[in-house]
């Protein structure tokens, strides 16, 4: 059993230690938010927060999560209680296919936690590990700025 905190709740997952955190999250943990994109830390689709910091779940061994707090996009908010970023992404219609958004949202949440008023350059830098193929970048940047404003208000 691998035990850690997932989106605020304690979980114990029956997975072999060689499984990746992403496989554990998408498998026994039953989540769909963290996405598989490359398996090689090159696209950011799988990004989650481990103790508040962005981490590539595709290469991180599930064993490395033991005793830590893992946050996925599902842990940011729900349709009934959305995170300001999720509200802002919808307000800006910041996405097309949306496959990259789970990872981008958690990285943006980590950015706003450490820098509540990031400028555009800081947002671009924080999101640079993430690939978006649909070209929604400018909307995503606007959405992060909008969320920062909402959270400061």
């Amino acid at each position: 059993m691998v035990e850690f905190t997932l989106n605020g709740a304690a979980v114990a997952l029956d997975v072999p230690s060689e499984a990746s955190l992403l496989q554990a999250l998408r498998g026994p943990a039953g989540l769909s938010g963290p996405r598989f994109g490359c398996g090689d830390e090159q696209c950011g689709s799988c990004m989650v927060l481990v103790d508040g910091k962005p981490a590539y779940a595709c290469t991180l061994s599930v064993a490395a999560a033991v005793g830590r707090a893992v946050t996925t996009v599902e842990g940011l908010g729900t349709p009934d209680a959305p995170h300001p970023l999720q509200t802002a992404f919808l307000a800006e219609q910041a996405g097309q296919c949306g496959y990259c958004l789970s990872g981008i949202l958690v990285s943006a949440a980590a950015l706003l936690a450490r820098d509540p008023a990031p400028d555009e350059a800081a947002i671009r830098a924080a999101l640079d590990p993430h690939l978006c193929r649909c070209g929604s970048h400018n909307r995503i940047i606007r959405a992060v700025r909008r969320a920062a404003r909402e959270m400061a208000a």
Partner: protein
Amino acid sequence: MSPAKEPGASPQGSGFAAVTAAPPPGAPTLPGSLNGNRLLSHWLGFHADGKVTITPGKVELGQGILTTLSQIAADELDVDFTRVTARAAATPDSPDEGVTSGSLSTQDSGSAMRHACAAARAIFLQVVAQRTGIPVEDITIEDGIFHGPAGEIGSYWALADAALLETEAPPEVTPKPASARRIAGTSVPRIDLPDKVFGAARYVHDLRLPGLLHARVVRPPSRGAVLTMLRDGPLPGEARVVRDGSFLAVLAATEWDAEAAATRLAARAEWAERDTLPEATTLPDWLREAAARGERSAVVQRGDPAAGVTRWLKRSFHRPYIAHASIAPSCAVARWQDGSVEVWSHSQGPYNLRADLAKTLKCPAERITVRHMEGAGCYGHNGADDVALDAVLAARAVPGVPVRLLWSRAEELGWSPFSPGMLVEIEAGTDATGTLVGWRSHIISNGHSSRPGRAPEPTLLSASMLAEPFPVKPSINPPMSGGGGAPRNGVPLYRIPGMDIATTRLLEMPIRASALRGLGATLNVWSIESVMDELAGQAGADPLDYRLRHLDDGRAAAVLTRVAEMAGWAKRVKREGWGLGLGMARYKNLGGWAAVVAEVEACERVFCRRLWIAGDVGEVVNPDGVANQYEGGAIHGTSVALLEQVRFDRRRVTSDSWEDYPILRFSEVPRVEVAFIDRPEQPFLGAGEASMAPTIAAIGNAITDALGVRPSRLPFTPDNL
């Protein structure tokens, strides 16, 4: 502008079958895909609970088409938008709308949906009028509820009698005038986006059927390699091996076991390999050589290109193979039961996929059900169809058990079809005043479509690897009447009295080629727009003025003028290391217009910092959705312009990771400003592909402005400049 003649304008080779279902002979023509799918019940249904379902055959690719179609339906029916649910396409119940491609979904499906809903509205009005004795003209509809002079007299849902829609759409229906639309024409938020920001299980990748097994393919180490030996041995998780010829896959209960088993099996496989690919460093030479053995045909011949010419400008332009580079590796789920198979797929054409699965399996199409589920954006014919066959082959070993087959990143970037390498040779002739009077060009390329469902033999990747393999036929081109493939946008939109434009389709295809956003336009528009800039320079004219001087197309002139205003073109100031460039096209010479101004900065390499875009797509159903498509296409174009190139050696594609196939990142993305000329009375023209090629052209011209060099090959990297 219409070409005087198009001799042999569809060098499509073998079997380019009808794209969608055909209407019965002699039947009146109906709008869009309604023509071949005439029953109203195929398009919409009303339910007693007050809901309306629309069932288009076009599929959601992240472009927002289901939102657009829901808006059209809600408007025409006079129901609130939230009552409408769009069901994903599936065989055999959805209308066969062919492939969701070519920026045609609003034209094909939107015009069909508008007409079908207007017809349904008229039928229900008639029924209510008959039952109540109130004349139709005295009945109004508000949010689906019918009102007579004395109040409520019925609703779609109270009358939700399916039989009313079991009828062919009549031709004489009149949809609402533009002035009466309330929902179409507004930026309704996308219906699919909430799931995507909350991490919901929306993609086929997330489908978890009970008892599901995970499958992975063990790909050959190189193209054309044949599996000669497979050593036995235990596999993790008691994984099961599926082999058919050189198609090799593993099945396991968990993803980690499936991946570990695939790695172990790969080490036990031996393959016979050989050189099958051309020399990458001399790709333009190979294209010329292969063209000598290819199928040459005329695209346009008009007048005498040499008449009045006092000066010729000769230029050639080249682009490499380009990958779709979807963010998600392709995925499908398949389940066999009693000799039939059900497939969940992010294919762009469920019926086309079904047709090629049937050919591969040598079974009637009726034994196969294809259900669309979203994947990541595809931007054309990526691995979506191929992986569906892989899942079907893997699942055949375990009847009754659903199998999810996920490609690796290396498969997605290394084995999906690619947009083919191309070469264009142009001779532009000007008269003594510098006016463009003659144009000769030759467009050399593989065909731009290997899509399934159109040829006698399947085009799915693994069909060529089976023990009884299917041959891989050279790719084909859609006919010029539909926009063409390699020669797409190869005919300048400008007024040129003499033209001789030809294309050669290669009859050998070392690297599997198919459709990617824009098809040949990505090279053709840039090559034309580059020549226009150079001719303007020769004539001592401003590039904008020179273009306007050669345009009879008022809508093209309007987008050019608009974008010049947006970018402050007339007042631009030259800065060291910076450049501004212009690009314009009407997509396919049939669809939406886009004019782009790009601003680039030349540092250690070229960066595009800003883009201004003016567009015209006729009637706009969802302004924000159209803007999103134009912005996305422009950023895609920027990425292709500056970075993208499929790399290969004599045996294999080597650019099979993001490190080797970089795309544009957040730190490099230009700011984009878009504006549209709204024409609510004009037909829909499509938005998905219009901005990409003009963006590449604008960046190419901006580079010349910044550096004084004129690029002749994509991508615009320091090596190529």
